[in-house]
């Protein structure tokens, strides 16, 4: 355009005019330099350029694993122990970890930050799996690899939903990345969530068939983990929504017999077994040299490492260390103590200590009997001091890393599903559906390890015995609360009430809530009130 204009206006003052026009032309041309405004990040890829190669897709899958490690104070494991009859809140003072204590006292509110942390972290995992599953088909990787990786992603999504539905019950079911117009989501029918969990796990079982990993890669999902998780979810569903005797059908068409079938496959074919020594599962000094992670007993372990270099507190969610470890360790330990000085959360109840019979080797691997083990005066008493702390996950000085912020950087894995659990779940289903003899075999196997050579096997076993055995075997592993809940609210209430000693050792169940926890209040508002608050809050 400027050129034609210049033709029209160029008259006698040509020379001067030319100068001006050149300048303007120059300016105009300059404006046309679109490239000048084209910038792109140089140290980060974008969504468009990523999700192509094998490496890309592996990293995308890893991002779905990552939220498993988000176990800062408000983790499911720690919280569920505190609200069960295994432990109180603890911590540095009455004002430390208030959210957990309020939950323990049955007075939690929907605006407590721990519920939204748990909610958000689990949905971050769901998002990672959804993104992976959406992008994988268009990537350049082999079909065989696609199938394997998808098998892992389906398991992970089911794992996150399994926690979400057991903690919050009425939750939105997100199976793809959402567009802005879809941000307002109501809770899905509970049956739909269980159906998705069932279908994800069955898909995972079939996609992962025969998949094994090198030693370095252990900790990734195998075909056995979804089988065990499916049985765990069946039992919870059957207890809370069904008859509790293995006769109900979980949405997704999973019967008690299916669950037992899957467990038996693990028992028969997986090669999994109990470790000979219970103490080897935990990083205790007595067994430091033989402490085994990702062992034959670990059906699914959330991995942790002390090799992460993150050393900023604010980056804690992305660190690969086990953050819960410092929470449960004893406070102010002496210089010569094997225990790393922790924060004294989740002090165990006297009832738990007393539940172990004479000769049960598990007691002294499960609980730190503080005075007996450390000596009076060699530690600080935490709030709600009971004299007992979680020994399974208390940090040891020998585990302290060379790198990173040491308090956040403990390497101990969280064994989410143990083979002992597979055995006891199978025993439970055998009592209801199968052979009492098989039930006793499984039960004896677990119990024999706990009592060593002094154990005399039983010929038959009751459900009550199995639940008691579960309490002793899985104490402070984040399992007990749901075991109580699936036996019914009266069982949960009386168990928790038994630990209510009054004063600061106050424990109670909010009966109206049916054992479930509040939907974070901000989620309700942000869903434009499509979500509704759970009953009891």
């Amino acid at each position: 355009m400027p050129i034609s204009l210049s033709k029209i206006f160029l008259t006698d003052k040509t020379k001067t005019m030319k100068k001006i026009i050149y300048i303007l032309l120059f300016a105009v041309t300059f404006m046309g330099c679109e490239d000048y405004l084209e910038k792109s990040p140089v140290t980060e890829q974008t969504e468009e350029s990523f999700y192509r190669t094998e490496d890309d897709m592996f990293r995308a899958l890893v991002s779905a694993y990552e939220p498993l490690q988000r176990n800062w104070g408000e983790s499911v494991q720690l919280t569920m122990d505190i609200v069960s009859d295994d432990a109180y809140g603890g911590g540095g003072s009455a004002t430390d970890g208030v959210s957990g204590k309020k939950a323990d006292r049955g007075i939690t509110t929907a605006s407590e930050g721990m519920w939204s942390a748990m909610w958000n972290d689990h949905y971050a995992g769901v998002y990672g799996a959804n993104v992976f599953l959406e992008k994988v088909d268009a990537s350049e990787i082999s079909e065989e690899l696609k199938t394997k990786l998808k098998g892992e992603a389906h398991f992970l999504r089911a794992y996150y939903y399994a926690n979400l539905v057991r903690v919050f019950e009425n939750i939105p079911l997100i199976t793809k990345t959402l567009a802005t117009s879809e941000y307002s989501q109501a809770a899905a029918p509970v049956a739909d969530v269980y159906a998705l969990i069932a279908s994800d796990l069955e898909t995972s079982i079939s996609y992962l068939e025969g998949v094994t990993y090198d030693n370095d890669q252990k900790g990734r999902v195998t075909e056995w983990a979804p089988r065990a998780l499916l049985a765990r979810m069946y039992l919870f569903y059957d207890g809370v929504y069904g008859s509790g005797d293995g006769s109900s059908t979980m949405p997704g068409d999973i019967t008690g017999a299916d669950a037992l079938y899957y467990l038996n496959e693990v028992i028969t074919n997986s090669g999994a077994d109990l470790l000979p020594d219970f103490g080897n599962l935990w990083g205790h000094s007595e067994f430091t040299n033989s402490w085994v992670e990702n062992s034959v007993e670990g059906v699914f372990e959330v991995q942790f490492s002390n090799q992460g270099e993150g050393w900023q507190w604010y980056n804690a969610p992305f660190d690969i260390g086990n953050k819960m470890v410092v929470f449960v360790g004893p406070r102010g330990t002496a210089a010569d103590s094997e225990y790393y000085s922790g924060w004294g959360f989740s002090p165990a109840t006297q009832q738990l200590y007393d539940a172990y019979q004479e000769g049960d080797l598990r007691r002294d691997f499960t609980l730190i009997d503080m005075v007996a083990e450390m000596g009076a005066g060699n530690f600080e008493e935490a709030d709600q001091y009971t004299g007992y702390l979680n020994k399974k996950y208390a940090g040891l000085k020998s585990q302290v890393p060379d790198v990173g912020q040491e308090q956040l950087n403990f390497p101990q894995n969280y064994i989410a599903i143990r083979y002992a659990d597979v055995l006891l779940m199978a025993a439970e289903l055998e009592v209801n559906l199968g052979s009492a003899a098989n039930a006793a075999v499984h039960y004896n196997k677990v119990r024999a390890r706990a009592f060593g050579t002094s154990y005399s096997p039983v010929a038959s076993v009751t459900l009550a015995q199995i639940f008691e055995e579960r309490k002793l075997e899985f104490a402070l592993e984040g399992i007990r609360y749901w075991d109580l809940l699936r036996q019914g609210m009266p069982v949960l209430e009386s168990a928790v009430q038994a630990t209510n000693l009054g004063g600061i050792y106050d424990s109670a169940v909010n009966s109206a809530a049916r054992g479930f926890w509040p939907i974070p209040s901000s989620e309700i508002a942000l869903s434009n009130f499509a979500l509704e608050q759970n009953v009891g809050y």
Partner: protein
Amino acid sequence: MKKTVLFLFLAFLCWNTFAQVHTVTGVVTSAEDGLPMPFASVVLKGTTIGTSTDFDGNYSIEAADDAIIVFSMVGFASQEITVGSQTAINVILAVDNMGLDEVVVIGYGVQKKSSVTGSISSVKAEDIQKMPIQRAEQALQGQVAGVQVTMDSGQPGAGLSVNIRGVGTTGNSQPLYIIDGNPVGDISYLSSTDIGSMEVLKDASASAIYGARGANGVVIITTKQGTKGGAKLSYDGYYGIQNASRHMDVLNATDYAMIINESLLNAGKDSSSPDWIQDEELAGIGSGTDWQKKIFRNNAPIQSHTLSLNGGNDQILYSTALSYFSQDGIVSEDKSSYERVNFRVKGDYTSYNKKLKVGTSIVYSHSTSQGVDPNNVYNSPLAQAINIDPISVVKDADGNFGRPIRNMQEIVNPIAAMYYLNDEYKTDKIVGNLYAEYKVIDHVKVKTSLGIDYAYQWHDIYKPIYELSTITKNDKTRVEKTMDNWYSTNWETTINYNNTFGEHELDVIAGTTAYTNNYENLSGSGSELIIGGKEYAYIDNVGNIESKSAGGTFDSNSLLSLFGRANYSYKDRYMASVTVRRDGSSRFGPNNRYATFPSVSTGWIMSEEDFLKDKLGPITFIKIRASWGQNGNENIGNFRYLSSIANNHNYNFNAGTVVNGSSPSKIANPDLKWETSEQTDIGLDLRLGSNFYMNLDYYDKRTKDLLIDAPIPGYIGNSAPTVNGGTVQNKGFEALLGYNGHSNDFSYGGTLNFSANKNEMLSINNDEGIIYGDVNIGPSGMKNLTIAKVGQPIGYFWGWETNGIYQNQAQIDNNGTHQPNAAPGDLIYVDQNEDGVMDDADRINLGDPHPDFTVGLNLNFAYKNFDLSMFWYGVVGNQIIDATRRYDLPNANYQTSVLDRWTGEGSTNKTPRVTFDDTNNNRGNFSDYMVEDADYLRLKNVQLGYSLPKSVLNRLNIERFRLYVSGDNLLTFTKYSGFEPEIGNTDNVFHTGIDQGIYPQARVFTIGANITF
């Protein structure tokens, strides 16, 4: 747009006129002393043809019969005289107190103050030099109506938050700074003595020429220019001492023990508790350690020295200066300080034919600073000093650093913490520009200018081995080095047309700019130095090779713009101005990369109207102004429209090594567009008699399409996208009143400026209607202290209302179920929605950090050779959150106000009981118990000067010799109980007004001198 400019420009070319020309000569004298006035400007109106008077005030100029000669001189009222047939015109210029004929700098040009139709405030070099200020932004505090300046802290080198007409964004609300035409990121590199003038463009019409960057207002700084005449060498300097002016009253050892033991008793514990403070611990320590006394330094020095040389003639003007400034902090002996050397050179050349002008302005500065955390309840030394128990000691009998007697987590011995602190910044910065202006033909000038802003910063950290507590320790020496580098270029070309047609005057400018900013960073660190010690803290000295790590990144953004402005006036009384700017920014995606920002303004000098002139009584000048316009804000960080892949979703498998996981960093929003601020301004400028003047402005400014990361539901699974999702309104009123008078040897004057602003969020378009400020204090409990919510001001304090103290159990039982754990002596919380539980729904507005009014009062007196000035500054209607106590540590010390705690029925209704087992969480829930009014009135500066009389100066052959004494912050009236009622935050509006143990401003006494040879 481009076509129009060209067209207008070409059209005006044909309007040249010719007339008879003859020589006019005369002498210009000053009305003040009757002496001839050298260097006065003598210019033909509407042209750039002109000259200046010689040493004896004489001039000679060729002028046509119909020409009008304008005689002007800074500080004097200019005069216009029509030549006609006169060949000798003698002029007496009167001192101008009103400044209406002064020239003010506007974007890409200058304008006569009386013709300005936008809202622009100026601060002159004389006013800046009067105060011994540390940073250039301080010169705006209390001097300019509508500009609120708040110091981030009193630490040397600390930033200042400058908000022009309120906080107009939830993002960066700081104005755009233009130095000699160059946009710069911050102005800390300037010495106050470098500044020739500062102009604040407040309304949309004034700042619209800066388009996408003008929404927060614009501050234009012109560095000092050379003046015609012989070279002048000046020295300006001061030396001062600084001291803390306030201490916080905290418990002494005896009272501390009493309160701690009482709080144990109230929690059901007794003297067997390890926390119990036994009598023998108090034996022989008197009132214990006064930690504040230990960390504050007495008589910390501050000094500034500037040597400058100015001069020039018709061809060349030059100005150069060397400045040194250093300030030690009032906290710590040697770990909080700032030092700067800067060198400035400015030169302007005008060719013989006056057609070509070439010039340059370059400032180089080198600064070093080190500091403590100035406002942080976890680790600032002040927070530690007020939280640590008074029983523990600075050093024990063996000369080792003492530790808190009981576990206090991050609270450690602050003296020891500072002793081991080695954290230093070294910054080199060059800001410069080079321009050439050419008069192509009469009335048309083309100018091109290239500017750079280059900054290079080292951040050095050295950590020795220490152990201050079980958790605050370091067992390996460590070095960390970070190098940041910013490099920006700004190239602009303008074409200007200026002409007069009879009584019409037109000034048109059009131009383009291209701006790019690059940032690059490199960092390295390592542990276990082979030779320990700060002086050996270099990466090559790292002993543990495996601990070495490195990082680095690069970032770049650019802006391309096209703009135009036309200023028109008729008969010098009707004025109008139109501005349009079109910007393209790399910060936005292709869908919304460009935006256009228009503005219009108009003014009418009523007092020039013949039909009004005689009816105005004492009013000698009256102008009304009105403007409307739009600006943008693009200062939002780069690439927020797209979702990059974040590689920090790490996991590990059995090998234990980190496996990188990658996930979109957030949800992308390719439609992201600019924040647009739309502002209407109505103003009135008035003069009464010859001594009194005032400027009044009313404005209504709405920033819409706010760029926010509005929370989205957690079940989406990723961070919220940045969206255009909100509107904030600032409306307010500003007034500047001035008075100048003199009688014989006594002159006096003053200005009073007053600003009122109301900030309100009009909309936030997420389902919740809330943006969380993400300000959390303590490990749990106190979350989101500040938020933005529709109908409330940005960053207001969001918490529970209290209603006194429960006096007995019956009162608790009768007050509903919402406080199940309350005991007598606990705070009564108000269950706003009466649903029986206390939660977020019960949080209300407990105050906000933005004042309703600010007032600045400047008074000047001079008698013969003495001068006295005073500057008062006050703010009204803002609040502060007193978050100075670690509520989660029951052992932490308290302010003495705790002595008035509840101790039994009827004892008090204000301060809750003390208890280790704070089941009601009195001190851990965010409630109005923590909020205090922070109104204050402060005597910011008072100064007394004496200048040697002319007779003495003449004998000494010195032009000027003035000595002064000055005091800063001598008086502060406030009800706020903390160190300092002024708590800004340059980086994040949501952190404003939160006291976590703020580093206070010092009280300063200085002596200084201004000498010109």
